[in-house]
Structures are given as C-alpha cells and as structure tokens.
C-alpha cells in the first residue's frame, strides 16, 4: 500500500465538505487494489457513496460502500507482486556485507566470537539432551520391548530392595505362559574381564555379554555378516564390527574360531556397532543358556494389553518364584518398565549408571537460555552497528531503496554471520572432542541428527534474523527518514536491555562461585585421601582361570620375597575400596534382642587386607592366621555398620550368612575405620570376612615405586602363573575414577562459567557500543565543553555497575544455599567461606575492568567535530 498511500492522504484533505466513507474499508481497498486502477475506483465508490448518502441515508450508504469494496475483490483488481529477481541483489548484498564486515574487524570478531561460543554451548547441551532422551529408541519395535526386574521385600523389617535382574528361568517361561508375550530373552553381564584368544592375539575384554537363543528375536541389530539364523546354537558368538576389525582386521569372519576363557566358540556373525545411548553396551555376545539371574527383556505383541500383562506376570511369579523367596524370608514382585524409560528410572541393585530426567530438563532450559542470550547479544551488536549506519540507511531510503531491499540486505548479513559462526562452532566442538577425553561423543551425536541440526540452524537463523530485522526496522521509521538524525531507544527498551545484562551477570557470577566451591571440594577430597598409601598400593587383577586354587597364596609369597614389597593381601571381587562391594543376605543376631534378616555388603580378604590399605583397627582385633582353622567363623565390621545397627558393644554381636540362625554364625571380632567404598559421598556399612581360597585381586603395598620394581613384580607374576598378562592399577587410579563425577561437574562448571563470562562480556561490549553510539552527540558536546574522559566513563558505566551489584545481591545467597546442600551430601566437605565469594568476585571484577578499559577506549575515539558537523 506504499504507492497507494499518497492518494489516501489526499482524499482526507479535499473531502472535508462531504460525508466520509468508513476509513478502514477504504484502507482495505487501497491494500488489495492495483495502484493503476485504485484512483478511479475509489472516485467511483465515493461518488456512489455520496449519491447514496443523499438518497438512502448515511448508515445505508456506508453499508453499501463496505459491500462494494468487498465485491470489488476480483482477479483484475488484486495487486500482483512485482516479479523482481532477488538473486543478483542477493549476490550484491553478500558482497557489500562481506566488505562491511571486513571494514570493522573488531566489531565483526566480537560478534562472531559471541555467536560461535553461544552456538557451540547450545549445540553441545542440546544434542547431549537429545541423545540422552533417545536412550534405547533405536531398536525396531522399541515401544513393545519391556524390561522385567524384581523387587524383594524382607518379611522381617519390610525393607524393599529393587534388583535390576530377574530370575534366569523367567525368560524361557514367559512366551509359553503368557499370551501377550511374543518373545523374551535373558542377558547376563559378567563383572570380570574375559580372556579372549582370537586371530593372532590375546585380549582381555570386559564387555562380552551372555544371552540366550531368543536375544535377536527381541532386539533387532543390523548384521554386517551372517544373520540371526546362525545364532542360538551352543558355542556361537556374535561380534561387533569394531571387535572383528580389532581381532582380524576385517568383518568377513563368519565361522572363525575364537576362545573365550579357554572355551572354543564359533563366530556366528558380525553386527554393526551399538550406539552410545543404549543399555546394551556389549562388544560381543556369547550364546549361553540362562543363568540363575539375568537381565530380562520381553517383546509384547503389538495388540497386547499392558496392564493385563503386568497382572498375569505377577500371578505367574507368585506360583513360580514366591515359594523360593518365602523360604528365604522374602516377598517379591516383578517390576515392568518400557526399555525406552529404563534410563530414567531409579537406580537398582546391579544397575548400570542412570540418567536423570529433571537434570536433562534443566540442561535443555540452560541450552535455550544460552541461545536466547546469544541471540539477544547478537541483536544488540547489530543494533549498535545500525545506529552507526543510520544516516546511510536514510540516504538509501531517500534515493528510493525499498524497505524489502533493506530487509534482504540485513537478512543476508545475518545468514552470513550465522553460517560463519555455525561452521566455527562445529570446528570448536570437534577440536574440544579430539583434544580432551570427553565421554559424550558430540560430533557423532550431531552427525546422527543432521536433519535436526539443519532445522536447528534454520530456526536459529530465523530467530536471529527476526531480531536483527526488528532492530533495523526500528530505525527505518519516517521520523528517521525526515530528520537524518540519530534516534535513541525508548526508556522501556533500554531498561529491558540492561535487565537482560543483569541476568547475564547473575548467571555468570553464580557459575563462577559454584565452580570455585566445587574445585575447592574436589581438591579437599584428593588431599584427604592422600593420607593413606593409595599411591603406593598396586592392585593386580587375577584372570578368571587362575582365581581359584592356591595361585593367590603362591604369588603373595613370591611378591613378599622382593625387598621393595612391604605387604601383600589377596581378596575376592568387590574388595577394591573405591568400587561397589558385593552384597548378600545375612541373619544378624544382636545380644539381648531379636534377630533379623538383612542385605549386607561384604568384602572377602585375607588377614593382611587392613594393613595393606592402611585401614585403622579401632576396636577388637584383626584376623589371625589361626582363624582359618577355627570352627567358629569371625567377621570384622566397619564404623558405618556399627552406626547403622546402633550397636553399643559391637563385639558382642553375630552375623550369620544366609537367612537361618541355625547356620554357622560369625562372631564380630573387630571394628575398623570407614573407607570410601562405592562412592566418595557416604560411608558404606561393610563387613569383612576371611577368605584366601578365591583370589580375584592381589593388593601389593610397595616401599618404592619405580619402573624397574614394577618390571620385577611382573616377572615374578609370570614365573608363577605362566601368564604374560600382568594387569595392575594403582589404588590412586580407582580413587580418581571415583571422583570422576565431581571432576566432570567441576570441569563443566568451569567451562560454563568461562562461557557465561565471555558471552556476558561480549553482550556488555555490544551494549556499550549502543550506548556510546546513542549518546555520541551528547558526548561530543561534553568533550567540546571540556569534560574529561574519566568523568564521562564514570557516568557511562554507572548502569552496568548497578546491574553488577544487583546481580551480586541476588546470586551470592542463592548459590551459597544450593552449594551448601551439595556439599552436605559428602561425609567430609569444605565450609563455604568469604574467600570463595571474594575469589568469585575478583575473577568477575577482572573481566569488568577489561570491559571498562574497552569503554574508555570507545569514549576516547569520539571525534566531536566529525559528529557535530551536521548539527
């Protein structure tokens, strides 16, 4: 309606002695009608309207006018868009934009840097959330696959223990007993490594799962060689592509022979590697009939009634498992959950690490917040540029540039910056992934969701484009066109802009403070555990074939002959302090009170275990060599177990293996200090039992750790076991692994605190640019009248100083409150002090000082004569 508007205005002036037709109807006519016929059409309608006013009255005339305007909506009256070829204009616009971007390298670098960091942070968080939310969804008919687990309830104390497994025979029983079940399978994950002879080498693998014959009828995998028909016979093994390439350098290995723990298997086929976001993280699958306990999965028929199935399953369980559980003092029922939901359910015994849905929602929100702030900063930077280019835009408008042409120019610039920043953010992510050991494979997550990445990029472009356009259109108003003067933002827009900056300060300061506290806590935990001998304790892993018998004792004697070996202990699985111990059912008989059945953690080791690890004996005595010979068993407990049982005299109690008091009871003979079993947060109740017939680990404490001593140890090991495989780790490594979550949290917080500071700083620089550009006349006049730069800086920086103070007041108490809660989950933790807050403030103030310096330079670069020349 741009061209039509001059006729519209003219009418209002001339038509003052006649009745006016409805204005909106006229505007409608001018909106849709072709400019070349609109004048006479409007004239005719007016003439008719005035005639009708005279003949039929004003009201009816207005109605007829409106109807006539609507009736004129015909093909020959409707305006057609001009057929302009935008391609040459696009090329021209791109060239102009590239030139403009190169002309102001500082502004361009800041914009690209801000956008790159923001996009990289957004992409990583977003795709991490996408990957986590799509756990196990890659299976065909994933919606029909369910996991069945067992929840045990002790009849004595009503304590429930959910277990991630179900009884082994259940899987084979289900398809024939329940009509809803199409197929069911049992999978078993071994805890120890398997020794594999394949190709020309020997390997120790920890991810070889066992499954029954129905596995491939429940879970669909893509086969590289072979197919599921060759699975299901005894002695079959299926490898993943990576493992086949590792053993033979090729994937065409069907029917090749492979030995696992000295049993021969035939390769039934090779399947594609499994994605990261699955619970079935195996490298090979061995065919094995169901064991006592297995991870049970069931494929329901598409039309099956879920509630009916759960009811029938528990009825089946009552008959099939109930009597056995009752015998041991338990009740039990099956828990059924979709395989796609398994990752988010509460963690159970023997479960794999779980995700947290709430945490993922928070991450998703954080990703969108980062994107919004990045977009906001991008628009601000664009705005400061547009203010500088205002006169240029006005001149373009005066010389006939159409609004859409200016819009296209702005969109081209946004697209250009978007593409450059997107490319750089991908490079940044790839570099971070290759330089650091990051568990989450970001690039493969992005590559796996190319369509989503494309849609995301288009969305980002649209949002940023819309923001830039709003910024630019603000400065295309007729007012600007007429006045050729710098237009300033309205107070409400300015307030909003500085408010968002305050929010950025709040987030940055909160993250900086949190990362300072987490770093201190992690360092504290590392210092605390240095008190033991963990950097001198070596843990040798004994291969499965050698675990039983007297190999452990022989190796112990051999090691003790070496001069640099202080002491040696042999122990079963679950004895490594940093790892989760095993557990079983025990009957506890305290003095003068009723006995009870409980699930208790246990560690089986010999009498030197406490000495090797430096665990202090607090009460009673240690195991003695003659305890092996005694009729009466003995047990040592830790402080946490004493606390849990509320024992006043721990040495007066007995713990019996099993559920019946009639079995051989073990007398508590000592109490030892707590060690961080199963996690650094809480001290876990443990009972220690004497064992030397099964040896899964050998703990060796050295007086001097040198490469030559380690070689000598390895030589002694090989002499006894005839094994070339001498697999050991220092206890220190287990602790570091244990602190992995805290380390990851610290790294994530530091990275995001840095990002938040950077994004916030760039945002503030954008705002300073706007503020300097908007107040350029005022500043020029001040400079001419003799104002000094420092006073101008103090006045100009007042707003962001206030934002910073508000942010500090809001953030510090809130962050301290949340971090205090986190710290209290640790048995040993640091106290939040003024030092933490001061450290956070200092690091933030440093970046603020840098920005002040930038502001000072900007003010110093104002040339009063140049800007006041047009006044």
């Amino acid at each position, binding site marked *: 309606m741009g061209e039509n508007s001059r*006729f519209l205005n003219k009418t209002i*002036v*001339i038509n003052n002695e006649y009745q006016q037709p409805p204005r909106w109807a006229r505007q409608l006519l001018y909106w849709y009608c072709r400019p070349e016929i609109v004048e*006479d059409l409007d*004239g*005719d309608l*007016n*003439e*008719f309207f005035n005639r009708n006013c005279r003949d039929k009255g004003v009201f009816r005339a207005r109605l007829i006018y409106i109807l006539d305007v609507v009736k004129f909506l015909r093909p020959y009256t409707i305006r057609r868009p001009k057929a302009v070829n935008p391609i040459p204009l696009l090329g021209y616009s791109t060239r102009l934009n590239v030139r403009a971007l190169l002309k102001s390298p500082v502004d361009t670098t800041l914009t690209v840097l801000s956008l790159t960091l923001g996009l990289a942070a957004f992409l990583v968080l977003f795709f991490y959330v996408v990957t986590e939310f799509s756990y196990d969804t890659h299976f065909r008919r994933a919606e029909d696959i369910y996991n069945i687990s067992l929840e045990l309830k002790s009849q004595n104390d009503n304590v429930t223990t959910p277990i991630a497994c179900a009884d082994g025979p259940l899987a084979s029983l289900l398809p024939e007993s329940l009509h809803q079940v199409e197929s069911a399978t049992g999978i078993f994950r071994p805890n120890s490594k398997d020794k594999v002879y394949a190709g020309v080498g020997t390997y120790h693998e920890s991810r070889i799962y066992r499954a029954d014959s129905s596995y491939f009828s429940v879970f669909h995998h893509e086969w590289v060689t072979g197919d599921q028909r060759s699975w299901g016979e005894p002695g079959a093994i299926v490898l993943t592509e990576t493992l086949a390439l590792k053993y033979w350098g090729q994937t065409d290995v069907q029917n090749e022979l492979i030995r696992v723990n000295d049993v021969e298997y035939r390769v039934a086929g090779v399947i594609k590697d499994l994605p990261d976001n699955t619970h079935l993280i195996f490298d090979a699958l061995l065919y094995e009939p169901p064991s006592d306990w297995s991870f049970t999965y069931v494929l329901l028929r598409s039309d099956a009634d879920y509630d009916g199935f759960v009811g029938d399953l528990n009825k089946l369980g009552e008959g099939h498992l109930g009597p056995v559980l009752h015998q041991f003092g338990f009740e039990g029922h099956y828990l059924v959950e979709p395989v796609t939901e398994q990752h988010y359910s509460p963690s159970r015994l023997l479960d794999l690490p779980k995700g947290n849905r709430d945490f993922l929602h928070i991450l998703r929100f954080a990703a969108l917040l980062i994107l919004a702030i990045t977009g906001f900063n991008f628009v601000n930077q664009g705005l400061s540029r547009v203010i500088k280019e205002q006169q240029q835009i006005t001149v373009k408008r005066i010389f006939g540039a159409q609004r859409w042409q200016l819009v296209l120019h702005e969109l081209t610039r946004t697209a250009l910056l978007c593409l450059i920043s997107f490319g750089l953010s991908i490079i940044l992510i790839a570099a971070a992934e290759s330089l650091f050991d990051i568990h989450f494979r970001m690039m493969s997550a992005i590559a796996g969701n190319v369509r989503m990445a494309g849609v995301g990029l288009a969305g980002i472009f649209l949002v940023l484009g819309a923001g830039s356009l709003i910024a630019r259109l603000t400065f295309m108003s007729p007012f600007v066109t007429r006045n050729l003067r710098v237009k300033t933002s309205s107070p409400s827009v300015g307030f909003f802009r500085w408010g968002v900056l305050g929010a950025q300060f709040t987030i940055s300061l909160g993250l900086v403070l949190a990362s300072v506290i987490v770093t201190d806590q992690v360092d504290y935990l590392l210092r605390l555990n240095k008190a033991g001998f963990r950097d001198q304790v070596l843990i040798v892993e004994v291969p499965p074939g050698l675990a039983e018998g007297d190999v452990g004792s022989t190796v112990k004697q051999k090691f003790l002959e070496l001069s640099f070996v202080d002491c040696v202990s042999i122990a079963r699985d679950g004895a490594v302090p940093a790892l989760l111990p095993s557990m079983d059912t025990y009957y506890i008989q305290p003095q003068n009170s009723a006995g009870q059945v409980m699930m208790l953690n246990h560690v089986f080791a010999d009498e030197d275990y406490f000495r090797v690890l430096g665990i202090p004996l607090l009460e009673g005595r240690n195991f003695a060599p003659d305890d092996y010979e005694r009729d009466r068993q003995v047990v040592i407990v830790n402080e946490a177990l004493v606390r849990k049982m509320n024992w006043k005299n721990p040495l007066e109690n007995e713990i019996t293996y099993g559920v019946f008091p009639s079995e051989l009871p073990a007398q508590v003979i000592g109490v030892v200090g707590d060690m961080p079993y199963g996690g650094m947060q809480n001290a876990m109740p443990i009972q220690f039992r004497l064992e030397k017939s099964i040896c899964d680990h050998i703990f060796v404490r050295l007086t001097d750790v040198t490469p030559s001593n380690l070689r000598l140890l390895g030589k002694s090991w090989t002499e006894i076991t005839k094994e070339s495989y001498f697999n050991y780790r220092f206890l220190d490594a287990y602790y570091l692994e244990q602190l992995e979550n805290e380390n990851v949290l610290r790294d994530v917080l530091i990275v995001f605190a840095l990002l938040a500071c950077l994004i916030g700083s760039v945002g503030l620089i954008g705002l300073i640019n706007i503020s300097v550009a908007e107040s350029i006349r005022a500043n020029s006049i001040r400079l001419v009248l003799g104002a000094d730069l420092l006073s101008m800086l103090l006045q100009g920086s007042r707003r962001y100083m206030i934002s910073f103070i508000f942010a500090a007041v809001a953030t510090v108490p809130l962050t301290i409150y949340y971090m205090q809660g986190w710290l209290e989950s640790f048995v040993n933790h640091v106290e939040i002090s003024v030092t933490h807050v001061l450290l956070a403030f200092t690091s933030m103030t440093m970046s603020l000082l840098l920005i002040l310096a930038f502001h000072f330079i900007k003010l110093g670069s104002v040339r009063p004569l140049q800007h006041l020349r047009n006044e």
Partner: protein
Amino acid sequence: MKGTNIGEFEELVLLTVAALINDAYSVRVIEEIEEQTQRRIKLGVVHAVLSRLEEKGLLRSKLGEATAVRGGKRKRYYSITAAGKSALVRMKEQRDQLWGRIPGFSTKPL
C-alpha cells in the same frame, strides 16, 4: 489483442460508451444504461466489463479531472476504438441479417 467476440451486456456497455461520446466514465455509463433499460446495474459489474473491453482493445481510457464529490479522485474516461466500432458494426450486421430473414416481419408481438 484478444478475440473481439462480445456478449450482450458488453455490447450494451460498448454502445453506451459510444453514445456518451466524451462523458463516458463508469458512473455515467451506469446512469445511462439504467435510464435506457430500466435495469439496476452494479458498479462492480460495469467496472469489470469496462476493464475487459479495454483489455480486448475495444475501448481506450484516460484519466480526467478530479472533483470534490469523488473525494478528489480523477475520473477514468473511456472512448471507443476503431476495433470497438467495427465490432459494433459487425454485431449490428449480424442482427440485421437475422431480422431480414424473418418473412413479413412486423413490430407487433408474435
């Protein structure tokens, strides 16, 4: 130029424009037809026909003067072209031929 076949109403509008000579703009054309035929004519219909006849090359148009009653908007005056005249003549001849073939034609109703 599009085909010169015209319909009955188009012929009527073309004839009216020819008859009005220098005063043929849409409102005047409507008034004239209404007066001659006693029919109610819609502005939109006449506009569409005038536009179509111009597109066929039977009429030409030019903008005239603005008047206050028209809200300061100019009139679009139409005049008949040579093609328009020949179309009218051809139509008249066709009708005359048909009239001539009626034996003992009388103006009285049949």
